């Protein structure tokens, strides 16, 4: 979103670079920028993660797990049956005005809605992989509601991929309190929330949450992880979401141009293989971080986080 205009010569420069498989920052067409991922930065949240892509894009995701009533008003009979046994996921993406002048005031509204919908479409459905039935406390009455709030702190292209990556890491970091259910007779059920933090559990199925790869069609070729200028040159974008089993969990085209069907297939294939390797490296990243923390804690050393906006 930030720069909205590009000069024809700049456009041409990017176009030729992509054609020659070398981009302005020295990357090839299918190279990702360096990913910095950190989890557990926010103590008030049930889970949080922050991701920085290269020199720019910075996304912070906080997950809050809260108690809520299961809403069954005005839902059809057979849908209600399934819904009564499930928790819920609610997504929200907000582009903070600090990231860009264009995000100030009402300017970012449409953009925010679009991003929220894209995240919501993937996470609110069976393809999200999350076991929502585990989030139900008393069927038909109480459940856990998982609020996923993403804030864009800095913008340097490829926002959506970063949001998905951060969300996945934040869900890994999320711990849901255990509940103890008691039947006190007369059909009344009460439950206690365990305060034993050690015993809290991850949301089941976090590892099946898909990641997204945005493929940008420039000329007759496609690139990943575009910078803002490259995004302006982009004729059409294709968002491919993939889970760790290599299944496609969603496809969406955006941007003004059109794509040849054979190129479309090629892009889906590329997105799938890149997505799978991305998941692998992300999983390794969060696991290594956790092991580091555990090791330091056992040695009674201080655990230091990089913190917001930090790159190294």
């Amino acid at each position, binding site marked *: 979103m930030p720069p909205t205009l590009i000069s024809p010569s700049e456009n041409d420069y990017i176009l030729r670079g992509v054609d020659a498989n070398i981009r302005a920052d020295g990357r090839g067409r299918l190279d990702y920028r360096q990913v910095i991922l950190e989890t557990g930065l926010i103590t008030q949240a049930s889970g949080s993660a922050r991701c920085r892509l290269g020199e720019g894009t910075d996304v912070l995701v906080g997950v809050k797990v809260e108690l809520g009533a299961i809403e069954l008003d005005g839902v*059809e009979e057979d849908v209600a049956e399934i819904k009564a046994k499930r928790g819920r996921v609610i997504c929200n993406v907000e582009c903070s005005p600090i990231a860009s002048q264009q995000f100030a005031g009402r300017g970012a509204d449409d953009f925010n809605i679009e991003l929220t919908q894209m995240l919501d479409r993937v996470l609110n*459905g*069976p*393809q999200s992989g999350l076991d929502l039935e585990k989030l139900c406390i008393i069927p038909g009455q109480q459940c856990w509601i998982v609020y996923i709030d993403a804030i864009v702190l800095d913008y340097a292209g490829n926002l959506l991929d970063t949001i998905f990556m951060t969300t996945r890491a934040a869900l890994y970091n999320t711990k849901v309190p255990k509940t103890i259910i008691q039947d006190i007779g007369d059909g009344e059920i009460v439950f206690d929330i365990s305060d034993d933090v050690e015993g809290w559990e991850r949301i089941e199925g976090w590892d099946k949450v898909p990641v997204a790869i945005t493929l940008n069609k420039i000329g007759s070729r496609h690139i990943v992880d575009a910078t803002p200028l490259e995004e302006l040159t982009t004729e059409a974008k294709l968002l491919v979401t993939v889970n760790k089993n290599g299944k*496609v969990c969603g496809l*969406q*085209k955006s941007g003004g141009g059109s794509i*040849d*069907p054979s190129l479309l297939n090629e892009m889906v294939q590329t997105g799938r293989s890149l997505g799978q390797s991305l998941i692998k490296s992300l999983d390794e990243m969060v696991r290594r971080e956790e092991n580091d923390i555990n090791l330091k804690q056992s040695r009674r050393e201080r655990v230091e986080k990089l913190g917001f906006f930090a790159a190294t």
Partner: protein
Amino acid sequence: MRNKLIQSENLCWLLDEHRPEVTVTPIIIKSSDKEKILLKDVNGRRRDGRNLEDIRPIFLKTGLISQANGSAYIELRQTKIACGVYGPRQTKVASFSGKGNLNCEIKFAPFSCLKRRQSYRDAQEKELSHLVFEALAPSIRLDLLPKSTIDVFISVLENDGTASCLAAAITCASVAVADAGIEMSDQVAACSASYIDGDIYMDSDLLEEQRETGSIVLSYMPSLNEVTHILQSGEVEISQTTQAIEQCTDACSKIYSVMNHSLLESVKDKMQ
């Protein structure tokens, strides 16, 4: 006279020549009965006699709305959509833009779905409006219309499956834009499909949609061989995705012939 116009044999089955005279109220099925309905029989035929890869017959007519610059009406059995195009007109906001604006709005009639819809625009309608915009924008020569706006208003009179509704809306809007005489690089045909139990059901209806594990909507410009929009949801094997894309592009080419036919008809009507 009419029969003469249909040249190719394969167009015949696609064209719904006789528009149904009456609208039949939907049969209300209890949830316990719903499970018993088989989506396809042993021969692989669906409830309405279609094969898995067949689409519903299409009724498409242009120029039914007198006040609009261009209009179209589409009917795929229970799905009924009308579209009106106004413009190009001068953009009201003073800011300059070198390209024309395309404003798409889709609205479900309050009585169009199983549940009554509110009269104001809800989140789903906004989302669908945006999808129609994304599918149409690549086909319209907006670069030839600086400082102008085109309004595309779509109203869904009857909804038999949201994905097929979106596809029909895109097809209908494209014909309406062409009817308005706005310059386009090609027409956009759209088709939807559902993934159910490992099969691909082309142009699925509401009941099939309720049991789907995933769906795809593809918009395609057959003459240029370019995909203008794709939206897939659900967890799907990549081989199935590839197959669905292929089947959808084929179906779009068929729909395209119906679109061309109806536009030709309208030109002939005007000349008389």
